[in-house]
């Protein structure tokens, strides 16, 4: 090799090393500076303990909007110069394994996101999270929201954001084919078939990621089970081994629907991930996409014209009875404080910021999702305005409450079984039998 190339590569490596050392030294210096500033600003009456700069850790699973969350945290840090927040975003599919292992091993994560319901119960049962009931900042939320996210009557998690899970649709394709917004499941299927007949893809599916298929299955099945079959306590019974999948006619319906969706999806349904599906949909070649509000930012970036003019959003009609088809509205990330945090004050300050009007607006503006903070706007995208009537008339529901107090995670197993069925490697009856086998081994 040429000598000059040698020397320049060596120099580059050396610079990298120096930069690395600089980076390491830089961090504490910055904290110190922030601390000094905080000390100057704080009043003389304050106890010296509080003036010390503290660092709290914040782990979250909103890793598709890492930069947006970082901006929110930055706002908090600017307001509280002596609290530094170390943000740790983790992909949702790895999140719970990682955080459970860390907490059980005695590590401290001061504040972290949790899903209300089953996960919140698991963590509160384990004694890992602090009871927040009665904290003043909870008054920023509606009583009904707090009640919906309570675990055994107590608030272990604070709602921060939530949103509809519904169907995005391409208005242009719908208009060109003369399609109406479907109000029943059969109408949805009919619309999809017509889109397919017109040579376009009916549904964008990013099922390579485990959660995308799981998200649909864990909403379709409980909606059908509780609202259509009336078995509202099915999942609680499943948890303790008193009910079986075989006893629930809705299971078969969901299995068949999954296969239909698969057939009406883009090609390579299990090879394309969430991001790929959003990509396809943004191109304007796909009719519909079942999703939360998360891809809005992305769609706007990728195809602003489509985002502003042709993007629509309607509630997923799980039933053939239009009266049952309200808008699914779920809590998304909620926040919890570790019970063993040594920085309780700072952690609660962080929570209070997230609950404030300013914190709520920060979520809405930076990551285009809805906030539970009272008075926050829902007008985050042109497409969202279509859902406004449902919000105004209170026509929303939350299918997740039907397994709110259960911790048995059947959805991963169920999704894998569904994938087998897509490729003709099993039958619905076999899936149900295998699921019941699995539940017999894993229930409490």
């Amino acid at each position: 090799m040429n000598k000059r190339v040698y020397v320049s590569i060596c120099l580059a490596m050396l610079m990298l090393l120096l930069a690395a050392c600089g980076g390491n030294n830089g961090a504490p210096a910055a904290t110190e500076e922030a601390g000094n500033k905080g000390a100057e600003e704080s009043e003389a009456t304050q106890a010296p303990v509080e003036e010390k700069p503290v660092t709290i850790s914040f782990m979250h699973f909103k890793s598709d909007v890492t930069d947006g969350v970082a901006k929110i945290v930055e706002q908090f840090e600017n307001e509280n110069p002596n609290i530094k927040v170390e943000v740790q975003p983790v992909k949702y599919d790895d999140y719970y394994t990682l955080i459970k292992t860390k907490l059980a091993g005695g590590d401290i994560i001061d504040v972290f996101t949790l899903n209300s319901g089953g996960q919140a119960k698991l963590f509160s049962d384990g004694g890992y999270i602090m009871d927040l009931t009665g904290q003043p900042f909870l008054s920023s939320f509606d009583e009904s929201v707090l009640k919906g996210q309570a675990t055994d009557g107590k608030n272990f998690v604070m709602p921060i954001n939530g949103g509809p899970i519904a169907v995005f649709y391409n208005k242009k394709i719908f208009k060109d084919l003369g399609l109406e917004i479907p109000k029943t499941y059969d109408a949805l299927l009919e619309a999809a078939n017509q889109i397919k007949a017109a040579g376009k893809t009916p549904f964008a599916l990013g099922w390579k990621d485990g959660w995308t298929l799981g998200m649909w299955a864990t909403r379709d099945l409980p909606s059908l089970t509780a609202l259509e079959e009336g078995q509202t306590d099915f999942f609680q019974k499943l948890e303790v081994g008193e009910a079986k999948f075989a006893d629930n006619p809705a299971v078969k319906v969901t299995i068949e629907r999954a296969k239909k969706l698969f057939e009406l999806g883009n090609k390579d349904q299990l090879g394309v991930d969430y991001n790929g599906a959003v990509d396809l949909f943004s191109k304007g070649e796909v009719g519909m996409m079942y999703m939360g509000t998360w891809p809005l930012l992305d769609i706007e970036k990728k195809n602003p014209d489509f985002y502003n003019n042709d993007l629509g959003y309607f509630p997923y009609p799980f039933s053939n009875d239009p009266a049952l088809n309200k808008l699914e509205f779920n809590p998304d990330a909620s926040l919890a404080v570790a019970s063993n945090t040594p920085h309780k004050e700072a952690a609660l300050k962080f929570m209070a910021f997230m609950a404030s009007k300013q914190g709520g607006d920060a979520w809405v503006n930076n990551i285009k999702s809805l906030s539970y903070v009272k008075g926050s706007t829902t007008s985050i995208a042109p497409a969202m305005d279509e859902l406004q009537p449902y919000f105004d008339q209170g026509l929303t529901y939350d299918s997740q409450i039907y397994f709110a107090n259960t911790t048995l995670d059947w959805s991963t197993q169920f999704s894998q079984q569904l994938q087998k069925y897509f490729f003709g490697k099993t039958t619905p009856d076999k899936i149900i039998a295998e699921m019941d086998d699995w539940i017999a081994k894993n229930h409490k």
Partner: protein
Amino acid sequence: MSVFKRTVKNEFWYVLFLMPGFCLFALALLVPLGMGIRYSFTDWDGVSQSLRYIGWGNYKNALTDDDLWMALINTFKYAIILTVVVNVLSLLFALLLDSYLKFRNVFRTVFFLPSVISIVLSGFIWSYNYSTGLPKLFSFFGFDNVTSPLGNPSYALFGVIVIAVWQGIGAPMIIYIAGLQGIPQEIVESAKIDGAGTSKTLWHIVLPLLAPSFTINMVLTLTGALKVFDLVFVTTHGGPAFATEVMSTYIYSSSFASYKGGYGMALSMIFFVVLVVVTLIQLSVFRRREVEV
């Protein structure tokens, strides 16, 4: 007494030299293995302090666990196909590079390059190429229905194998090249003088003399492939429809994601026994060949 003293004096330093290595070995392997055997007889969840002894319960459950058999079958399918493909291709590459060829060192570097990057990276790059890059490339040539093999349970394992081949050819190729260079030129030349054609020379002279390299490559690739974890973990997590669930990922998800630590350890021990059996078979094949030579 003086005998004892002399022994101590003679052996003191040697034993002391052995100790740091042994202590770390115990820390990294002996103690965990002992703990693992113990845990495999308990209902330990993998993280908490409490555990209860349940005898052979985990092992009984494991033997009736369909998922274990599926994972074992996938593991062997993966390992055997990979071993065969890697050995055939790396031998071919070695022969090509050993023949008269310009820039042969450049080519050797190119074929070895994928082996030096981390599996996380290659898994990431390939997943993306499978789902986006290759379909786009093929549609450019008019094939519109190319889909990612990782998204189809029938092909997912082969999709993973392709990545493993891409990354795994470097080292066996170099071992074959070394083997080829170790073959005395006179033997090859004299065969040619005796009128043997290129293919005949290759088949009857070169390949038999490569047998030691062949054995080593078979053993190294097979044992490595049986232990595969990273690649599956970063590309498919064992899916779709469990098509790529191998032993390591199954043990990992049982132990860490499903919180069945005791059960995960029983699975580990069963896997360990399987690996010991495979190693013993390999060794006996190895021995027999050595006797023949």
